[in-house]
């Protein structure tokens, strides 16, 4: 933490005394002043709520789709054999390139932002759910069969708990991806949220304000990550946590 403070002080000194003159680089004190204005006017809160809301909603929907489809593909060798390559090929296409297509189809709208966030978030959940389900040791399923569990009970009591660590890894990856895509969509398409705040400040040539939004976006990333890490700690036995740390 002290390093951060030291960096900020160094930055302030460099800019204030024009030791390092970089055009458009605001001093930390200017950024703080801009942040204060933006917080007091309520502008930042509204944008933050929008971005968090879309990210969370899109992530939630992507998780449901990803886990459902992942369970199906993980449990049914037939479905896996006749579709996995299609998913692998589609997944390889960088989701960013779908932004222009989504803009053409949905226009500058909330729908476009949400569709992008969901699309990007589905992949990590899907792939990690499939991986988690398929790597369950066969003995574990035999136990389920021996206990004469029904198919649904087997999924609920054997498959899901065993695949949970891997699924959580997917969920965490998906959350950061959803945030990135929400911000990209706001920057180029849907005129709302933090991404739009960034672009507006950039276009208005208000570097201090722009840095405010960059910092807020970073803090949001940290907050989302640590929320999910705490949730995982509550959900998982400690031996499975190591996998998540990476």
């Amino acid at each position: 933490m002290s390093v951060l403070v030291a960096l900020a002080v160094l930055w302030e000194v460099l800019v204030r005394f024009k030791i390092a003159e970089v055009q458009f680089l605001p001093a930390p004190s200017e950024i703080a002043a801009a942040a204060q204005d933006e917080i007091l006017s309520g502008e930042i809160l509204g944008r933050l709520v929008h971005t968090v809301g879309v990210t969370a909603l899109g992530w939630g929907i992507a998780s449901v789709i990803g886990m459902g489809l992942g369970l199906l593909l993980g449990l049914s060798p037939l479905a896996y054999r006749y579709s996995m390559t299609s998913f692998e090929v589609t997944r390889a296409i960088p989701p960013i390139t779908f932004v222009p297509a989504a803009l053409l189809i949905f226009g500058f709208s909330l729908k476009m932002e949400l569709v992008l966030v969901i699309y990007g978030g589905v992949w990590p959940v899907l792939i990690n759910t499939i991986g988690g389900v398929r790597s369950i040791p066969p003995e574990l399923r035999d136990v389920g069969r021996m206990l004469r569990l029904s198919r649904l009970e087997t999924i609920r009591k054997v498959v899901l708990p065993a695949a949970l660590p891997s699924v959580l890894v997917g969920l965490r990856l998906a959350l950061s991806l959803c945030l990135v895509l929400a911000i990209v969509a706001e920057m180029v398409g849907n005129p709302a949220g933090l991404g739009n705040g960034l672009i507006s400040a950039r276009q208005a040539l208000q570097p201090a304000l722009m840095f405010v939004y960059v910092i807020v976006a970073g803090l949001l990333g940290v907050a989302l990550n640590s929320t999910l890490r705490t949730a995982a700690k509550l959900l998982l036995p400690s031996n499975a946590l190591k996998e998540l740390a990476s």
Partner: protein
Amino acid sequence: MSTRSLPGLLPLIALLGLWQLLGSPDSPFFPAPSSWWPALFTRGQGAKIVPAVLDTIRTFGLGLFIATILGVTLGILIGVSRQVGRAVGPTFEFARALPPAAIVPVATLLLGFDEPMKVVVVVLAALWPILLNTSSGVQELPPTLLDTARSLRLSRTRTVFRVLLPSVMPAIVLGIRVATPIALVITLLVEYLTAVNGVGALVGEAQRTFQPARVYALIVIAGLISLIVNSLVRSVEDGVSRRRVGDRL
């Protein structure tokens, strides 16, 4: 791709076939796949494709290369010294969580719309997996390894190059594999957002001039680049890990 995985392509082929049958080439949203390829060359735009692909690959390659050098160096420093690790911890935590898209407006304002700006953004995004994998690779090394180097009185540089680097190589390569798709996505992102050269800029241009077929064609090209690059990196990783197994035998 083995023949075993071929049946898995059926849904994709069926989808594209259905799209071809139901879609019209003039649809503003879903132009039929057969119209994609010709759309690359209409209005004399064909000459832009190859330079754009080369631009994208250059930015991606240069960014990944610099990220690797920087990530490995910083990763070893942090892995070797606990104090360094603790000092930079919060700064890195923040920088890592920062959505790369948010860096782009800042980078364009401070560095301008040019090639170095693109590379800087790619490096800032692709650095983290390499750095983190390297530092945890160093921390997980058996202490006897470094003790041996010390008792052999190896100099510091020799310890790093002869002992440390070879033993964390698999961790570094794993980091590079994770960083590869990130670097490619961020290259396309920064090209799209800033319209400075490359495939990403072309997709953006096709979108703004309402050429949906061209957008889809460029999406396919981006997908092909990604498939090729990722399988290249995976085969390098396989090579490295196989050599490691050979070492142990």
